[in-house]
């Protein structure tokens, strides 16, 4: 069947669709609040009906009828397989190596996909303080791969983050191994302007695709580090079916879809 691309969609819907497409069927997914939840739920309704969503606060593979506003939301209890707590989920699922893909976000993302969710400026005298790691440092260290969601602004994409809350490739291809991390690393950064991926050899971010209405030059201009755009293609737009499912099944209350863009 030929794909019918949607004509009317918002940026956040486009990003949710891009997030969903990163998930493969049968994978075990660690999802956080907001866009990752939209993406993971959309994937379940489309190409990945057998993917399992795990919430760090305890619920495993629930059947959501209402969009959670917290990873510990009582809505995540509905028909879950198990519901324990952080210690069990982090140790026996994440650290044990069962999470295929984890979603992350943060205030700053650098050229190697390291994330800062802690502070701007010196750690002891921060200019701006953010909420902190939560589970994101754990997901970054111990998922088999990670997808990062971010607002694309120059100040949010520096060469080096002020504080590594959640390690990406750290400083290149040997970074994670040297740090002692057994596996993992970021595979994509879905931003408000495009999708970045990481060069296989250098592990530096490059522009893989730019969203409809955006030019590679614009993405370059809004990135604080030197960005290779030579491989960039246009982001595949959402299909009519994907948008319908997002609006009617995933977030009919408009809890996240009505927000302008992924904050943080």
């Amino acid at each position: 069947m030929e794909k019918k691309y949607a004509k009317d969609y918002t940026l956040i819907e486009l990003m949710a669709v891009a997030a969903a497409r990163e998930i493969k069927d049968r994978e075990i997914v660690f999802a956080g609040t907001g866009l990752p939840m939209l993406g993971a739920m959309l994937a379940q309704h489309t190409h990945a009906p057998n993917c399992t969503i795990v919430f760090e606060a305890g619920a495993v593979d629930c059947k959501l009828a209402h969009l959670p506003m917290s990873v510990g939301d009582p809505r995540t209890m509905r028909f879950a397989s198990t519901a324990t707590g952080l210690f069990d989920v982090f140790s026996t699922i994440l650290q044990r190596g069962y999470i295929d893909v984890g979603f992350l976000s943060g205030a700053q993302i650098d050229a190697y996909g390291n994330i800062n969710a802690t502070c701007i400026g010196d750690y002891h005298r921060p200019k701006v303080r953010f909420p902190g790691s939560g589970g994101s440092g754990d997901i970054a260290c111990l998922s088999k791969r990670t997808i990062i969601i971010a607002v694309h602004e120059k100040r949010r994409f520096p060469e080096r983050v002020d504080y590594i809350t959640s390690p990406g490739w750290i400083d290149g291809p040997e970074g994670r191994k040297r740090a002692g991390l057994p596996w993992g690393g970021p595979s994509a950064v879905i931003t408000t302007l495009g999708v970045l991926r990481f060069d296989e050899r250098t592990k530096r971010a490059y522009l893989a695709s730019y969203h409809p209405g955006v030019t590679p030059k614009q993405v370059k201009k809004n990135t604080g580090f030197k960005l290779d755009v030579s491989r960039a293609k246009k982001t595949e737009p959402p299909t009519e079916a994907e948008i319908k499912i997002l609006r009617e099944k995933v977030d009919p209350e408009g809890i996240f879809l009505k927000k302008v863009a992924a904050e943080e």
Partner: protein
Amino acid sequence: MASKVDDKIMSLREATKLVPNGAHISLGGFTTQRHPMAFVYELIRQKRRNLHFYGHSPGGDLDMLIGAGCVRRVELAYEADEAFARIGPRFRRAVEGGLIEWEDYSNFGMVQRFAAGAMGIPFIPTRTMLGSDIVKKEGFSEKTRRSDPKIAPKKLATINCPFTGDKIVLLPAIQTDVTIIHAQVVDAQGTVRIYGQNFGDEQQAKCAKKLIVTCEEIVQPEELREYPEHNLIPFFRVNAIIKVPYGAHPYACYRYYDYDPEFLRLYHERARDDASFREFFNEYIYGVGDWEEYLGKIGGAEKLRKLKADKKLGYAPKLKRG
């Protein structure tokens, strides 16, 4: 050791006596779920000072304690009401203004530290946080660490595993002076049952030297002992029991009530500014005699009806959230 007889049931005010100034405490719940809020409000009214707070992902429970000037130091992973606010406004202000001392870990890191304390071991090995600045940067100064023997002498240690040679992080155990949790059901002896995810409550409760449990209902021991496999904490670990229906408001308590979006939005709007924050506190905490009066203030029976959980789902499906 706490006894089996029914002398643990008390008032919020009596129970706050178990938390002296300078105590090392932890509160149950997770971001917008099941924090012991009635107890938090009472601690604020009692003007506790210099508390040392341990948490994984607290929300407004910690933000309000900080805003009220009760907290001196925090060890945590996160502080926000998730979808309602990107960060607790009082926490942010306190850190940026240097009004408190802080030490960052990850969520997994913190629950492992509670688990180690609960198991009575001095540290716990983990693979998480490797490669991050959480491992590289200490929050507390040497002076702070020396000032209180209950604070770990160092944040963590990285070693090579003696068996495999793998790089591994060792995290120091936490044993709190007092942990306070809010449970759905407790019996008069203290056996605790929690419905839904327990978050980190199990580890936070079991690492405590003293445990205070606020709850929705107190039932006969026979009722909980009919299905002991559903109970989380044995009675002898519990020192105080306080019945406070809706005691986690404005946060959700699975099977009983949902979070209160209206109140949470109001809090975050008011807490951004010093003056409006003080007004908010005067209205909802200092100016309120007891929990009954508080529940009236937040909208009374009509509000509670809106928040009441659907029996089957465990939350309020028709609640206006967007």
